[in-house]
Each structure stands twice: as structure tokens, then as C-alpha cells.
């Protein structure tokens, strides 16, 4: 269930330095997130889709991910046309459809998907642990990147632990329904997972102390970004600037 299906690969995108990719993603998604015109959002969406295609994602996984995220967009399409804006409306039997609402829903969908494409193309192509190290290099406090890396490492162990307990409950005839017994059972399963995590934390802390840990995490040097990485960064920043310029033009019109 928890997996990094896009992180394996050997395309141009997979090989780039995670720091560079973090900066690039931030720049592009910032411009996209703040833009207010549909043509600009559409252009951004097309550009990021092209970027994504370069990273050659697995098509089946990609469509599943897109559907998941767009369930939210669907919610927007259902609510906004009925509730958003004061301008013109179209009467559709008994419903008042606001044109502003439709415009807004379209804008949000384009932005959401554009950012998603950018994210999948740039960040999902790095392993989570290398992103964690990248964050640290970019000035995120050490304690925080530490927390990030260790949490990542423990996710799998704890999830497995929870699933094994859940299996035990299932074998004893547990069928979830709307009852206090169900909620109590979930609480016990989760509570037991928590207790195990807590105790495991203690033991791992001991393991760290035994290996000389005294509160300072010393990073093992990571590969430095090369020339190709800087060119890559340049292109990403260029894309952001282009989109920002377009926004500016469309606003001033």
C-alpha cells in the first residue's frame, strides 16, 4: 500500500539531483498555484504534462493516481457551479448554474492537475530518503530532516504490524459495521500498534546510543549536483518565469 512506484527508473528525470528537483518543483508549482487565468493554467498544465511524459511513468499506476486526486476535483465541479459567484446563471430545470462557478472549477482543476504532473515528474522520481537528505541540504533544520528520514524508515514496519493485528481480528470473525464494538476494536488494534511503536522507539534509541550517537546526526556525503543538474534547474526556472510572465500579461490585459 505504501510504495514509491515512480521512483525506479533511469530517465533524465530520475538521475537529477533531488535538491535541484525540489527547487524546480517549488518554483513551477508556486507560479501555477497563484495564477488566476485559465489560459495560463492550461499552458502550465500542458508543459508539466510534457515534463511528466519525459519521466515515462507506468501508465496504469499513473491513471490510478490521477483518478484518486481528481475525486477531489469532482467535488469542486459538483459544488462550485451551484454555489460560487453572483454573475450570470443558467437555469437548468430547478438548478441555478453559475458561470463563474464553472470558470472557477475549471481553473482549479487545471491548477491541481498541473501541480500534480509537476510533482510526479520531478519529486516522485526520487526516492523518499534522497528527498529527505535534499531537504536537509536546502536548510531544513537537521532535527526535522532527521524526523522525516526515521519516520519514513519506520512506516513500513509499523504498517505491517498493524496489518498483522488486523488479520488476527478478521480471523476471529471481526466484521466492521456501525457499532461501538467496531470502533472499540479499531481502537484496540491501533492502540496496540502504538504501544509496540513506543517500545520499539526505545529499543532503536538504544541501538543508536550503542553506535556512539550523542545527539548529532552526521550526514554521509551525498553526490553533488553536476553540470547537467544546473542546466536542468535553468530550464525549470525558465518554465516558471515564462508562466509568471504569461500571468502578468493576462492580468494587465
Amino acid at each position: 500500500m505504501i510504495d514509491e512506484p515512480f521512483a525506479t527508473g533511469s530517465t533524465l528525470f530520475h538521475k537529477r539531483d533531488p535538491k535541484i528537483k525540489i527547487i524546480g518543483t517549488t518554483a513551477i508549482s508556486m507560479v501555477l498555484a497563484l495564477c488566476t487565468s485559465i489560459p495560463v493554467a492550461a499552458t502550465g498544465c500542458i508543459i508539466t504534462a510534457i515534463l511528466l511524459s519525459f519521466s515515462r511513468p507506468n501508465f496504469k499506476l499513473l491513471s490510478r493516481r490521477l483518478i484518486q486526486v481528481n475525486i477531489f476535483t469532482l467535488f469542486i465541479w459538483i459544488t462550485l457551479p451551484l454555489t460560487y459567484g453572483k454573475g450570470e446563471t443558467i437555469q437548468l430545470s430547478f438548478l441555478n448554474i453559475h458561470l463563474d462557478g464553472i470558470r472557477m472549477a475549471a481553473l482549479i482543476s487545471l491548477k491541481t492537475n498541473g501541480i500534480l504532473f509537476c510533482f510526479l515528474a520531478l519529486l516522485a522520481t526520487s526516492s523518499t530518503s534522497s528527498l529527505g537528505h535534499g531537504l536537509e541540504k536546502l536548510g531544513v533544520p537537521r532535527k526535522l530532516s532527521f524526523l522525516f528520514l526515521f519516520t519514513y524508515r519506520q512506516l513500513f514496519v509499523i504498517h505491517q504490524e498493524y496489518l498483522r493485528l488486523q488479520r488476527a481480528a478478521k480471523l476471529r470473525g471481526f466484521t466492521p459495521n456501525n457499532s461501538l464494538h467496531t470502533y472499540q476494536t479499531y481502537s484496540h488494534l491501533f492502540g496496540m500498534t502504538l504501544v509496540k511503536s513506543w517500545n520499539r522507539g526505545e529499543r532503536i534509541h538504544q541501538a543508536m546510543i550503542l553506535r556512539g550517537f550523542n545527539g548529532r546526526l552526521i550526514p554521509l556525503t551525498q553526490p553533488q549536483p553536476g553540470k547537467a543538474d544546473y542546466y536542468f534547474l535553468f530550464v525549470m526556472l525558465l518554465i516558471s518565469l515564462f508562466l509568471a510572465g504569461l500571468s502578468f500579461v493576462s492580468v494587465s490585459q
Partner: protein
Amino acid sequence: MNTNPPLLELRNLTYSYPGQKGSLLQNINFTISKERIGFIGPNGSGKTTLFQIIMGLLQVDEGEILLHGTTIETDKDLFTLRKKLGFLFQNSDDQLFSPTVLEDVAFGPLNHGATPAEARNISIQTLEKLGLKGFEDRITHRLSGGEKKLVALATILSMKPEMLLLDEPSNNLDPATRERLIKILRSQDLPHIIISHDLDFLASTCAQLYTIQDQQLIRCKAKQIHSHEHIHPYGDQPHQHGT
């Protein structure tokens, strides 16, 4: 159709883990009614996997599982099967999740429709039968390894199963608890299948042995008497032998 179909029947089961090439288990056929059976075999040969298949935790590629002559198909069949076959996990920590022993033992009966009062009675009786009287309000998480194993067994027995599937029940038990478990298993009037690497344990609790070889479940030659000698230093300490 038989007048008296077997308790459990496996027909032509074939299974491979997703992404694995080749099958782990191929064309497994097996029946059990009242027997006490042991499964022995090398690590990774698929013994635990077979138990998980029987309990409906893994989907077979081919083949069917029959309980009292009825193929297991619907969720309801599965629910019944899981009540009738009690599966003891290799690691008791994966099996116990309620705060106190009594709550854990009563969990199964409650799910299978017992009233709280009935569930409590059944649980207390089951604990007594296993020599765990007075353990009702103990915190399961704080029990010793051997005690956890016996409580895990209680959580299954309280569901009044018709058969037991036990995955390496004698692992990590000290000699006293191990003896106690053997006594309990012998006194139960239930058929069982026990996975174990511990041949002495199997010899004291089972009448037939099966092994998995070349993806097949094979019945070992009955009662073939075998004798070997072993010599080592410090043999006066309680010990066990590796595989």
C-alpha cells in the same frame, strides 16, 4: 456425494506469490477429518503459506477448499470456515490486541454472536481449562512469551473450533511451558495440523507427518522408526538442534 464428507479437503491447490516466477505450491491435495497431523519441512517451503491459504487470507491461483464437503465461495462460507478452524500464529504478539486477557479471549465469541455474559463465561471456562485461572484481568501485553502463547491458544479455543492449525507452537517456549502445551493438545478432543521443526514435539502430538517437497504435499512413510546418535560437548545443558 459422500454420505460423510471430510472436515476439510483441499483440491488441486496451486499458489504463487504475486511477482514470483513458478509456483510455491502446486496441485496440493489433502483431506483431514479426525486426524492429528504434523507438517515438517525446510524453511521457505510454503508451510505457513498453506495455512494462510486454508484460512482464506491468500487467494489461490487454482483449486478449491471444501469444508464438510461444501466449497468455500462466499464471504459467509469464509466466516464459517474461520470459526471452525482455529489458527494459532507463529508469533503471539501478532495475535493478541485487547488490553486484558479476558477481553481478548471473549473477542471471538462476541463476534460470533454470543452475548457479553455468555462470552465471559466461555472465556473464563477456556482459561481455566488451560490452567490460566486468575489471568482474566492481566494486561496481555505484559505477559511472558509462554503465557502469551497459551492465551493466544485460549482466544482460539473459546471460539469452539472443530480443528486447530498451529504454526510452530513450541517455538521460543521454555521446557516447562512446552510440556504443558503438549499435555493440553493431547487432552483436547480435536483434530489438528501442527507446523513444526521440532520432531520430538510432533512425535508427542501427532500421528501422521506430511512434508512439502517440490511444491507438493507428501505424506511421510508411517511410523518409520529412525535412530541416530549425536555426540557433542555440553550435552548436559537443555538444548535444541538446528535444522
